[in-house]
């Protein structure tokens, strides 16, 4: 074995017994100590499976047939239980709140060490170190459930790191985080790689966030094959690529740059020569959503504080803000499921609280953070038939709509077995079958790959512009906002702090600026297509 080799996959194939598809086939690669490796691939291609192979959760915990051999620091994962690798591999899941085993930050950090019977003095020292390293000291006695998403993610990383692992595995660690919190978490990881020579394997859909930190990329194709190579090499050809790579391709640059700095150097002449582009002014239609001084408190804490805003038909509005700023509270208030302390909210002239049954379905469609909450049928077809019945539309129309969004869907599939993107599409089709005047979505792109995201953008644009409806979308995804939205409302501590055209709001804060805008600053181009238009005109 090579001296500094940490993870070794040799001819690994993985198959789940209930599925006919091979997840991974004859995969071999090595990851050296102190390397940060990014795993990319469309949803449902087996990224999570690959990550969980590293500490043996697959197949020990999930079942499945594994061929070949995987060693971590010379230990074969086939021969030991996942717990026996706990001191070697730390794993942080997509949803840290589901993996917490205790209530208090300090106890959570100590849990793993307690399980391994480490002496109390050693534990105390390590817990202190981790609290300092991750800047968690001031939170040590807090209940985990009261922490923000970013803080929870840091606790989850801390409780893995406290075991002094040599490998840290993270599954979409920033998918639930706002851009600032995501940056915080990623820069900590970057520091760990450089200071402690930790080996990190990370899966992430939003490449724009992580690409600058990755040493190598594993690209899972979805047909069982996978490629491991340098980021430049993979991104030259891959469909999955961050906006700056698309920019480089669209402009025909010889090299793909991975950082804003690289691409800025290559595009100086474009910044100088491109012309200002006109932003299409949308003429405001009728008021569809009317919120007047909404205030709302939960358990003594103000979630919304005097929010007043209007949304017009034909408009796509983004609702942004940090974790816990009150975005979800505002959305659920607008659709009338929260009791307001003061203020009124109306949708299409009907008070939100009075929306019922058919009137509700025709006024407003709501896609919650977990689209699966809306689904209870036994099959895709069953769901669609139920939606047809609810909206009294002709039989088969919901399914026809669904097929326009995702053509390859099998009507007999159970909704649970759909991929993340397909499930969102199904929920959308159901909600849209009633032809609501307003469509509201809460974090729809969480866990979506670029392909599904592009599909969503097309669908929503079509819905808002062709049918002259309103779309309100709460999201952390600045790239989505840049592509899709006309207007951005920015919330902080339950108050609207900014409200204006997307261009203005996104460019006013560096943390919320999309990648292309950073490359092209001070020119006001947000997306690849903006730049192309500027160059072409």
């Amino acid at each position, binding site marked *: 074995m090579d001296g500094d080799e940490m993870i070794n996959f040799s001819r690994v194939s993985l198959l789940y017994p209930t599925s006919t598809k091979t997840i991974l086939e004859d995969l071999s690669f090595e990851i050296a100590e102190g390397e940060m490796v990014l795993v990319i691939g469309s949803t449902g291609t087996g990224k999570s499976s690959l990550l969980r192979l590293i500490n043996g*959760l697959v197949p020990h915990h999930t079942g499945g047939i594994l061929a070949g051999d995987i060693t971590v620091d010379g230990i074969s994962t086939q021969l030991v239980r996942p*717990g026996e690798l706990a001191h070697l591999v730390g794993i942080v899941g997509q949803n840290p709140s589901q*993996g917490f085993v205790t209530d208090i930050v300090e*106890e959570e950090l100590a849990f*793993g060490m307690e*399980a391994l*019977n480490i002496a109390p003095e050693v534990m105390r020292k390590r817990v202190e170190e981790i609290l300092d390293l991750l800047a968690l000291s001031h939170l040590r006695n807090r209940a985990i459930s009261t922490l923000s998403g970013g803080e929870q993610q840091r606790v989850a990383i801390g409780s893995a790191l406290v075991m002094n692992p040599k490998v840290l595995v993270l599954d979409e660690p920033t998918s639930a985080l706002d851009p600032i919190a995501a940056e915080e978490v990623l820069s900590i990881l970057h520091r760990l790689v450089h200071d402690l020579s930790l080996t990190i394997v990370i899966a992430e859909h939003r490449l724009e966030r992580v690409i600058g930190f990755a040493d190598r990329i594993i690209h899972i194709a979805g047909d069982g094959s996978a490629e491991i190579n340098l980021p430049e090499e993979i991104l030259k050809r891959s469909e999955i690529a961050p906006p700056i790579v698309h920019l480089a391709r669209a402009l025909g640059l010889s090299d793909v740059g991975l950082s804003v700095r690289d691409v800025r150097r290559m595009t100086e002449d474009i910044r100088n020569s491109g012309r200002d582009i006109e932003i299409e002014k949308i003429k405001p239609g009728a008021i569809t959503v009317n919120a007047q001084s909404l205030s709302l408190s939960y358990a003594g804490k103000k979630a919304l504080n005097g929010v007043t805003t209007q949304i017009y038909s034909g408009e796509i509005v983004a609702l942004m803000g940090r974790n816990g700023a009150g975005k979800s509270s505002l959305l659920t208030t607008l659709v009338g499921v929260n009791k307001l302390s003061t203020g009124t909210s109306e949708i299409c002239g009907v008070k939100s609280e009075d929306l019922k049954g058919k009137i509700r379905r025709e006024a407003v469609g709501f896609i919650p953070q*977990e689209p699966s909450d*809306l689904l*209870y049928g036994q099959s895709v077809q069953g769901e669609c038939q139920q939606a047809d019945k609810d909206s009294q539309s002709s039989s088969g129309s919901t399914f026809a709509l669904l097929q326009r969004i995702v053509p390859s869907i099998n009507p007999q599939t159970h909704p649970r077995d759909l991929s993340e993107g397909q499930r969102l599409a199904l929920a959308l089709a159901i909600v849209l079958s009633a032809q609501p005047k307003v469509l509201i979505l809460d974090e729809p792109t969480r866990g979506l790959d670029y392909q599904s995201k592009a599909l969503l953008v097309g669908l929503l644009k079509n819905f808002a512009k062709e049918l002259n409806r309103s779309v309100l979308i709460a999201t952390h995804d600045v790239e989505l906002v840049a592509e899709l939205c006309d207007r951005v409302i920015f919330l902080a501590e339950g108050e609207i702090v900014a409200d204006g055209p997307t261009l203005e709001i996104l460019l006013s804060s560096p943390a919320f600026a999309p990648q292309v805008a950073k490359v092209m600053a001070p020119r006001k181009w947000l997306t690849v297509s903006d730049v192309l238009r500027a160059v072409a005109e």
Partner: protein
Amino acid sequence: MKSLHPLTWWIWSLLVICAVISANSSWLAGISIAGAAILVWRFAADAPWAHSFWFSLKLGAFILIIRTLVGILIGVPIPGTKLFELSILPLPSWLAGIRIGGVVTQERLLSSIHEGLIIVAVISLFGAAVSLTSPHKLLRVTPIVIYEFGVATVIATSALPNLVQSISRIRRARLLRGDEKPSWRSIALPLLEDSLSRSLELAAAMDSRGYGISSKRSRYRPIPWRRPDSAIVLAATLFFAITWTVMK
């Protein structure tokens, strides 16, 4: 109030359950339910699992109603004051001894309610223990030797509170689909799926963090057994002892 030992309320609830069962008195059952309600209202932390008690009360009330109805309809007639009479359902001769319908006496009604109340008391006392103890703390004192039991305890005790949380989330989503009176089935299916996946996730997290690997566990912070713990357990023991001797 300083936090109590995680086992305190569990021991307390077990002892009170024993007392209620051994006393077999609906009065005592009623008093225990009321007592548990006061304790939960007064002492339960503002945590997701704290709602479990109120959920268990609702469940208990449901069981009480069913139990009473079944008790009235089916069973051996108890002579006494006649309240009203139901027509007797004719049954085939090979079902001799079983009667559906007939005279409903005050005694028969009361005995059904009495038995129902005892069941409600047992369920709600269990709910009170869940409400008053953090499931995570409970895990830390569970001996590691019973690994499977430890995992099962955590999952079971966190499943009830998670269930309560998921129900309200799914209900709200159903409401948003314009479905004011969602059918039981349409809530149950996503609910089951949700709790199952959460439980699996938790078990995987525990597994990958080394739970159950070492036969001994160290304690980051000792969980002391303090005087209030002894006082609560002692009070419950006395309660049990008194009912036991009085009923004899």
